[in-house]
């Protein structure tokens, strides 16, 4: 029994160590490998508090072991009476004062960092993106740029970017672990924070506040590109016009079907009719073909798009598109897909960064 136990414990220990070493999670998702300002500040505090608290834990565990080794009643040892100690002023003072000092060591940097991250005085000098959370997707409107997009948010590298968050329905929370800590997306007021990414790439964003059945599928991406690429992307987005696209016959039919079937009621496909501040009903599909994922989670393949258009419910339970459009035949889906796959305003895409 004893033997088995200690083997088991060794195994457990080994497992944990292996887990820690096996990496700190997926790159571009984990908070342990920061690629942005907010995440970096948070990680510093995570490390500081971990170190302080681990040393406290060690003290406790060492004391516990000493006590058990020294004062444990051995098998068969008769009960005896031991001196009844009331307490000790000195000892008690020690373990009151030392923790107070330790708390101070953790509290001061925390407070400093809080105010650093909350300083939004230079908001007007930087890019502002108005983010709206919807059950179960994200919308990004670029202030002063007359463009909007959904699911993938493009930002330039090493530049401060302000995100102004509001929800269209219930509470969500905006979290891109590698770049920054999270901020709630409230329905009644705009929450503002800035993010700054250090490296180009595609970063995983998550919704962190329970918002319904598909809460776990409400992913988005932050696409960090170079400054020039960003400029180019914005200009491409502005000038893109889906009605003037040169399309083959199938895709052209798809474009007509997109109107016939009422998709346009919810989805925009270019920036021509952009109205600042207007809340769309469904994701903006202007750059659908450039998306890193369909509906935030599926890899951008024909089959997956078919799957989504055929039965969105099977992909995202409770989503707001299900049942909002007439059922599509396979042929119609093919045509619409052909059209959607042409919606690629820019060379700058998520795929180019992944």
């Amino acid at each position, binding site marked *: 029994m004893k033997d088995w136990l200690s083997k088991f*414990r060794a195994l*457990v220990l080994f497992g944990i160590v292996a*887990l820690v070493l*096996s990496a*700190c999670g*997926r790159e571009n*998702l984990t*908070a*342990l490998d920061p690629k942005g300002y*907010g995440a970096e500040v948070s990680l510093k505090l*995570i490390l500081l*508090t*971990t170190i302080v608290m681990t040393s*406290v*834990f060690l003290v*406790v*565990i060492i*004391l*516990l072991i000493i*006590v058990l080794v020294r*004062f*444990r*009643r051995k098998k068969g040892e008769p009960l005896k009476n031991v001196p*009844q*100690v*009331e*307490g*000790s002023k000195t*000892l*008690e003072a020690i373990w*009151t004062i030392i923790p107070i000092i330790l708390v101070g060591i*953790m*509290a001061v940097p*925390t*407070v400093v960092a*809080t*105010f650093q*991250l*909350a300083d939004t005085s230079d908001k007007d000098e930087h890019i502002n993106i108005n983010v709206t959370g919807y*059950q179960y997707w994200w919308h990004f409107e670029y202030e002063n740029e007359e463009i909007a997009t959904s699911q993938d948010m493009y930002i330039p590298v090493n530049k401060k970017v302000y995100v102004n968050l509001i929800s269209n*329905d*219930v*509470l969500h*929370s905006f979290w891109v672990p590698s770049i920054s*800590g*999270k901020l*709630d997306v*409230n329905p*009644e*007021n705009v929450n503002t924070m800035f993010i700054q990414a250090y490296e180009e790439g595609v970063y995983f964003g*998550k919704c*962190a*506040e*329970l918002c*319904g*059945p598909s*809460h776990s599928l409400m992913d988005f991406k932050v696409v960090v590109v170079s400054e020039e690429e960003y400029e180019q992307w914005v200009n491409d987005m502005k000038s893109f016009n889906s009605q003037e696209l040169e399309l083959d016959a199938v895709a052209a039919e798809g474009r007509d079907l997109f109107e016939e079937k009422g998709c346009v009621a919810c989805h925009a496909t270019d920036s021509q009719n952009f109205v600042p501040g207007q809340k769309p009903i469904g994701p903006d599909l202007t750059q659908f073909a450039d998306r890193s994922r369909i509906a935030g*989670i599926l890899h951008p393949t024909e089959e997956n798009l078919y799957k989504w258009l055929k039965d969105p419910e099977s992909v995202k*339970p*409770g989503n707001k598109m299900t049942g909002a459009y007439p059922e599509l035949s396979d042929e119609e889906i093919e045509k619409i897909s052909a059209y959607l796959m042409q919606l690629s305003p820019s060379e700058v895409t998520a795929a180019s960064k992944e």
Partner: protein
Amino acid sequence: MATTAAAKRSFWEFIWDYLTTVDHKKIAHLYLAGGGFFFILGGIEALIIRIQLIKPENDFISAGFYNEMITMHGTTMIFLAAMPIIVGLMNAIMPLQIGARDVAFPFLNALSFWLFFFGGLLLNLSFLFGGAPDAGWTSYASLSMDSSGHGIDYYIAGLQIAGAGTLMTGINFIATIVTMRAPGMTYMRMPLFTWTTFVTSVLILFAFPPLTINLFLLMFDRMFGTAFFNVALGGNQVIYQHLFWIFGHPEVYILILPMFGVFSEIFATFSRKRLFGYTAMVFATMLIAFLGFMVWAHHMFTVGLGPVANAIFAVGTMAIAVPTGIKIFNWLLTMWGGQVTINSAMLWALGFIPTFTIGGMTGVMLGSNVADYQYHDSYFVVGHFHYVIVGGSVFGIFAALHYWWPKMFGRVLNETLGKLTFWPFFIGVHLTFFVQHLLGLMGMPRRYWVFLEDQSLDLGNLISTIGAFLMGVGAIIFVINIIVSAFGEKAAADPWDGRTLEWAVSSPAPYYNFAQLPLVRGLDPLWIEKMEGNGKIPAAEPLGDVHMPNGSIIPFLMSIGFFISGFGFIYQTDNVYWYLALYGGLAFSIALMIIRSVKDDYGYYIPKEELEKALEGEAK
């Protein structure tokens, strides 16, 4: 008792006895049974959650059902399992520890139990009638307003009924401790479990009203079209979050403080040493409770309250580590220099120290709000609170059950099985919840029905699920132990060489507790008498008739009335006929309330002769 009424009673008499009882010890049995049932239910829900998360993109259960599972798991575990079991322990032990014959309001005590029971029943019936609540145990207003069906309505009605019961319990225990301590039992001689019961009751008294109001607001918004949380009409759902956590944070101390009391008793008893730093322990308890009211916004660091609020609440939160640390070190020093017997109860207590300390560590780490921007609503938080709740409250419950089982049921639990319960459970806890911290930091938010493939979250989740099943094994062995021990030998009055008053009466305690009120000469009165007296607690009064309250079926019936009117509340939005249930149930309960207050109930007396006979029997 064995000498009086013949042991043979019919099954129905037995049931009737429990339905009408106002005896705190029998009510404790009811609480333990009810809470135990809900613990198994909540545990099964936990296992379902873990099975769903065993591998990426699993489809063991649907998304909607998953949300119902986490909501019901959290709600059940906290309101219907942990709290009732804790209240049950308090009921069983606290009056004995202060040398009282019952609690201040025995009738209310029974009512409290039945309200809890029917509230919990109502909540769980939602599974049968069209869907359970699915907005998380916090049931934040924006989502719970949006949620269709009646799940949330069940949440509101169930918790409102159960919560009323808890509030009455709080008042009852405070009054008991204030007015009914035996002669000589000054405040600073009360055992620590009684102290923590007292402080916990105060927490209940002040923490539950905000929850009550919050549920009312949500109920009005959902059922009667008011606009507290309706943004279009100027409402504000952050109010809900504030009110919930003004309740919610003290609530977690309601779960842990009584267990601090339990551990204090156990460490002292099994080290054969007086609790180290008793006075400091008492004041640390009060300080934790006091600070506990001032840190609620640490659950809301990411809501956007602004840097000033966040900074204040961060520092306040970390400060709680200080009184808690005092406790940890005092326990260690209690064992230092003592003679430490390690049996099942003590194993749980020893396991608690590292486990809870890890939970407290991560708590303090969460308290650093800038770090919390990353932790919040991720599995790191899930890891934290299971470490403190399971490592603190659940370990405490197991410890207390092993320690007081003889006093409550007259049988000692089997030692071997006791140890066999501990090890799988202890290992399981660390397997399940330690990796969750890492998962959180690796980017896994909580309340996720599925995690996607290719995000390096697979291994951690698998380990976590395996651990959960180990806990299940431990829990099952405990159930076996209960059954086996029921046929074991009868327990002595004082099987552990105890220190406090509850060990001065027979096991289980006679229904009148003390034939004569005891005279208390100091802290650890029984120990004092063993060391300085004849080993018996001196009596504070001559033997005489003992006044007892009458049993009553009214608490049970009243709770049924509220239960029915709960259904009325839930369904009146569908069909006006349900108003019949709503008002009918309410009228029924009010009528019973009036009957209760109009009918005089003076209780009855146990004649002196009967007590004399019982005492002789005991002496033999």
